[in-house]
């Protein structure tokens, strides 16, 4: 099923926008995208964009790999400030408040107004649309959406005398099983840690958000102006991280995001908490039997939704906006959502993609891919506020100061809460 034929769309949209003579006007699009995981993402993006360009010979598109998520946002905002933004970009879902405040993006629901457009915007999982909407408008379209899952080495589980089909579900089980999974050499040095939860930087804050969700709380409100960093759930989550290190289940100190899949593949960590976007990379490179489970939770399952959405920039002309919408529909069509999901491990953001034969086949072959989808109902939005980068930094500092032993949990979260309230006070 092709959603749209190529030449009709600008006409339809042009009419909808009241543009009158909406001929198939040519548009040159620039498309920024980040890569935050170890996946052949660039190749797949290139493939998808050139297919779209081939189907729409009147348009051109230039995909620009712009670094990791934070760098891509920085680059897009700086380009916008200089008057030369991309027309379309994949940026963090949580950057919606920053993008709205900087007034650089246009609400998709303002430029895509036909019933078909509305049906398109309603075709995604509601959980992924939650952080794409603000003040009643839809500002973004889910694209590379992810959630962290628990990857574990079944061979290591067997070696430790644990049931490889029964991964830990709670924090207590994680600590109990983790102790058995940690292996030391003759000198008493650890050669295999029980688990590995990244705790540094933005990714560390993302993982931390999941811990808090599993304790029945969320770090930020939908308004983007309220945070609850100093909650009992936060303190409990930090204490859990400290306990993992004390019980020698996890390496003490800061743990980086980037090395995590490698540590798993090299057998240095028996289990890891990382994005479902790393699924394809691990599947390709693991030379052992591995499984995927829900993230072990405090009071129940819990995870943060994460990843990036597609945004359209305000500076784009009407022709470019129309072409951008068409491009986004192409990228998020059930077939392409499925292809993107299979190539990377990102969660295809619409239910109908999961029903396609290629997706069914893929899941039958790699049942691990389904876990993220099943965990989705327990996922809450990622920590997002106005002044996102600045406010997240307070949270990051709190987490980092606790895991490196510089501060105790209660004092750290209290300081972060105070600083966040200080910044967000202006927005309330």
């Amino acid at each position, binding site marked *: 099923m092709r959603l749209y034929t190529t030449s009709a769309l600008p006409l339809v949209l042009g009419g909808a926008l009241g543009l009158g003579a909406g001929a198939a006007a040519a548009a040159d699009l620039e498309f920024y995208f980040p890569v935050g995981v170890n996946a052949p993402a660039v190749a797949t993006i290139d493939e998808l964009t050139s297919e779209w360009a081939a189907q729409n010979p009147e348009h051109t598109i230039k995909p620009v790999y712009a670094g990791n998520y934070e760098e891509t946002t920085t680059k897009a905002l700086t380009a916008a400030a200089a008057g030369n933004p991309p027309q379309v970009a994949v940026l963090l879902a949580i950057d919606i408040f920053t993008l709205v405040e900087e007034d650089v993006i246009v609400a998709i629901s303002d430029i895509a107004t036909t019933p078909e457009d509305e049906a398109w915007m309603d075709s995604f999982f509601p959980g992924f649309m939650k952080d794409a909407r603000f003040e009643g408008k839809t500002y973004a379209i889910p694209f590379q959406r992810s959630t962290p899952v628990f990857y574990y080495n079944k061979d290591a589980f067997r070696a430790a005398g644990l049931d490889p089909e029964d991964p830990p579900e709670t924090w207590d089980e994680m600590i109990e099983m983790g102790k058995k999974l940690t292996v030391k050499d003759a000198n008493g040095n650890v050669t295999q*840690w029980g688990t590995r939860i990244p705790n540094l930087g933005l990714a560390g804050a993302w993982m931390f958000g999941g811990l808090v969700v599993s304790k029945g709380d969320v770090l930020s409100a939908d308004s983007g102006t309220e945070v609850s960093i100093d909650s009992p759930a936060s303190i409990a989550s930090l204490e859990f991280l400290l306990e993992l290190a004390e019980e020698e289940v996890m390496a003490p100190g*800061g743990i980086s995001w980037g090395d995590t899949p490698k540590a798993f593949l*090299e057998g240095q960590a028996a289990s890891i908490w990382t994005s479902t976007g790393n699924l394809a990379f691990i599947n390709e490179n693991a030379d052992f039997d591995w499984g995927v489970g829900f993230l072990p939770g405090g009071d129940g399952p819990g995870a943060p939704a994460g990843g990036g959405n597609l945004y359209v920039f305000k500076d784009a002309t009407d022709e470019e906006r129309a072409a951008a919408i068409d491009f986004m529909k192409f990228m998020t069509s059930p077939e392409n959502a499925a292809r993107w999901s299979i190539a990377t491990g990102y969660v295809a953001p619409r239910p109908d993609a999961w029903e396609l034969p290629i997706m069914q086949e893929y899941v039958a072959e790699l049942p691990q891919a389904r876990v993220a989808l099943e965990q989705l109902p327990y996922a809450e939005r990622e920590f997002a506020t106005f002044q996102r980068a600045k406010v997240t930094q307070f949270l990051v500092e709190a987490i980092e100061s606790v895991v490196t032993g*510089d501060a105790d949990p209660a004092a750290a979260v209290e300081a972060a809460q105070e600083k966040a309230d200080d910044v967000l006070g202006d927005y309330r």
Partner: protein
Amino acid sequence: MNKRLPIGLAFVLLVLPCSLLVAFTHYPALRALANSFWNNGSSRRPSKFVGWDNYRAMMEDDRLAQVLANSAIYALGTVPLAIGLAIGMALLVNSKLPATGLMRLSFFMPTMLPMVAVANIWLFFYAPGIGLASQILSVFGLPPINFLGSTDTSLASMMVVAVWKEAGLFMIFYLAALQAVPANLKDAARLEGAGHVRVFFDVVLPLLRPTTIFVAVNALINAFRLVDHIIVMTRGGPNNSSALLLYYIYEVTFAHRDFAYGATLTVLMVVILGAMAAVQFWILDRKAHYQ
């Protein structure tokens, strides 16, 4: 004697360099100064004149205090280390040992690599448990060190990367200077009964002084100017333990979009660098012996 240029031609010749200097140095500096007295506006919060507020915030900024302390340690640590290592390497490749050509190449290699590539190499080197450093430690039965994940080691790890990258370039300057040291001075000293060490410290080192001052000025500037490896490797973390002043300015300005406070920090950086330049030129005038 030189012929005097007509005043008109002199003016014409000066226009281009002066306009570049104004456009890319003076104007931005003055603009930063002006911006530092305004707060940061956006579509939801208009910008307004706030006087000294940004500077007051700067005085109370705990993070800035740590960043400045880090920058001071970083500069004081990397500059002498890079200079010492550069002199050592220059002496080595200037000696009559075999394979000095290969040594020159391998010492100079890190300088030719872009900082981002260097940072990625070291990222792999430092990775606890899987990196080369851990593997070397494990040969000796030592536990892996979490170089980048611990507040005790992250800044020192960044300094090692900087020294590794920079020493090769400075070695080239020292090598040139060493080859310009007149042999008869060394011979004369030896005739007087001076040993190798004495010759080095009393004859060679004083003659290297102009090079040392030049290298020290450059190393100090680089210590404030080069933060690519911080961005790639630690993003200033954990808990700001490896954040340097320029990285902080980058983060505040471009990631946090706080242009007003970024401008305030820029003014601070200009003042610091200006003060250092003044001190260095004062030393340069007094101590350098050019022939």
